[in-house]
């Protein structure tokens, strides 16, 4: 729709302003420098009080643990997101819901795996990501096969359309659960990509590169992590999301790859990804491939804030807050375990 900038503020102006305010509160490099110099978790809590987080840890019992910090950080982000979702009209409401579906997939897989290992449902529900909660969560432990799971429970959740490709009569075991997780995520990513394209305009312009990178990154990571496991090449090829730049030739080559060198050769055909593979290693002082992917993702998400009147800012805000949470937890773990050699391995955002 042409000139959609004129009417964007009618429905979503307040929320865009709000999310830009939240974005201003994301920790800067100087904040991270202060955090890195802390000696104990209590110091960390003190330093976080002077940031946007405020006294979010004030009511926690001492001694402070890293998992408590992690939960509270997530809770703050969820409160902000829920506020925005509650005030959103369509189509923003649908877009925000779509962001939560990836967390819902993680929760479903967590619950199924927990049930497989005979854990009580009351133990598992607190471990689920709060953004991805849905009503039928407690009922997941009843099902024994994926077909039963789908017919009884998941058909009423928003995840139902993603299950088309992965209903099978096989029993749930580790390999199949992993396959289900990745098939669901593939369906989710492809339909998110289609929705962004339908929304069109600046939203499509900003979201599509991010989602393409996500798809390619998943394809590469799945390929590398599947070396040495029992996942066959055909099964592996079925897990690659097809909405990225690697589709179709890159994905076909990745499906045939046997070792890390071949994956690197495939990535060399694409200049963005060729850069990411340089300087990667597992020696101390070198970054891992996952770290380079996270850095690239942060770069793409920051770009979303340079443009106005689109929904990409909401997605990027969620992802940047997630990265900030990972950074703080990494620094907190280094402090708590008194192993400060790699404490600078966080990814600075602003």
């Amino acid at each position, binding site marked *: 729709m042409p000139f959609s900038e004129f009417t964007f503020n009618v429905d979503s102006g307040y929320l865009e302003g709000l999310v830009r305010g939240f974005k201003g509160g994301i920790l800067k490099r100087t904040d991270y420098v202060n955090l890195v110099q802390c000696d104990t978790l209590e110091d960390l809590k003190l330093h976080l009080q002077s940031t946007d987080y405020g006294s979010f840890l004030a009511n926690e019992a001492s001694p402070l643990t890293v998992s408590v910090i992690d939960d509270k950080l997530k809770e703050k982000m969820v409160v902000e997101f829920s506020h925005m979702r509650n005030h959103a009209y369509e189509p923003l409401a649908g877009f925000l819901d779509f962001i939560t579906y990836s967390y819902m997939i993680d929760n479903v897989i967590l619950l199924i795996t927990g049930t497989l290992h005979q854990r009580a449902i009351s133990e598992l529900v607190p471990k689920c*990501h709060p953004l991805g909660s849905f009503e039928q969560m407690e009922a997941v432990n009843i099902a024994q096969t994926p077909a039963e799971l789908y017919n009884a429970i998941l058909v009423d959740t928003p995840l139902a359309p993603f299950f088309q490709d992965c209903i099978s009569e096989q029993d749930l075991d580790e390999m199949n659960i*992993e396959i289900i997780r990745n098939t669901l995520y593939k369906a989710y990513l492809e339909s998110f990509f289609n929705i962004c394209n339908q929304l069109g305009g600046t939203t499509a312009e900003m979201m599509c590169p991010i989602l393409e990178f996500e798809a390619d990154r998943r394809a590469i*990571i*799945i390929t*590398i992590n599947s070396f040495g496991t029992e996942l066959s090449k055909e099964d592996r090829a079925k897990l690659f999301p097809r909405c990225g730049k690697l589709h179709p030739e890159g994905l076909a080559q990745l499906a045939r790859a046997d070792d890390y060198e071949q994956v690197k050769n495939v990535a060399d055909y694409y200049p963005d990804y060729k850069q990411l593979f340089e300087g990667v290693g597992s020696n*101390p002082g070198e970054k891992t491939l996952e770290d380079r992917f996270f850095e690239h993702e942060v770069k793409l998400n920051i770009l979303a804030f340079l443009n106005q009147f689109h929904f990409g800012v909401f997605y990027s805000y969620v992802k940047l807050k997630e990265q900030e949470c*990972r950074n703080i937890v990494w620094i907190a773990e280094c402090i708590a*375990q008194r192993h400060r*050699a790699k404490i600078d*391995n966080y990814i600075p955002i602003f």
Partner: protein
Amino acid sequence: MKEGRLQKRNAFGNQCKKPAGLTSLQLLEAGSRMNRIHQGPVETLTAEVQGVRRRKNPTEMDTVGSEDREHTSSLERWDKTSDNAVEKVLPQDPLKWFGVLVPQSLRQAQQSFKQAIPVSVELASLQVQLHDAQDLYSHLLEKKQQLLLSKNRGRDVPSSD
């Protein structure tokens, strides 16, 4: 999700911490009173050392001296009942706890840890050997002192005539 946190933890697995026994080994070297270690007496100790090794790996069956046979028979009985349990437990790779597609750094961490275990076992048994050799040496030194004293007393007695 939790996986992100776990991924980050892998870096720690690559650097194995010094086993606690290493510091006491260094103390042994610093406070050592021995200059030479006889090879002969040490070999009789290896039976005991093998006893130590066997207790750590109950599934290995070594044939040793008669005083250890009671040890082995009780161990054998325990092994037969626990073999079934051990066989069920062993194939469960802890890597599976983190899903099937785990990051390469986690696999490497597991490999490094597996490589570190025989090294630390060897260090522990070497420490026991050194300790025993040191005890034997001090014992023999005392004996030598006593023999020298009694020999001197014996020489003194005729000269006082």
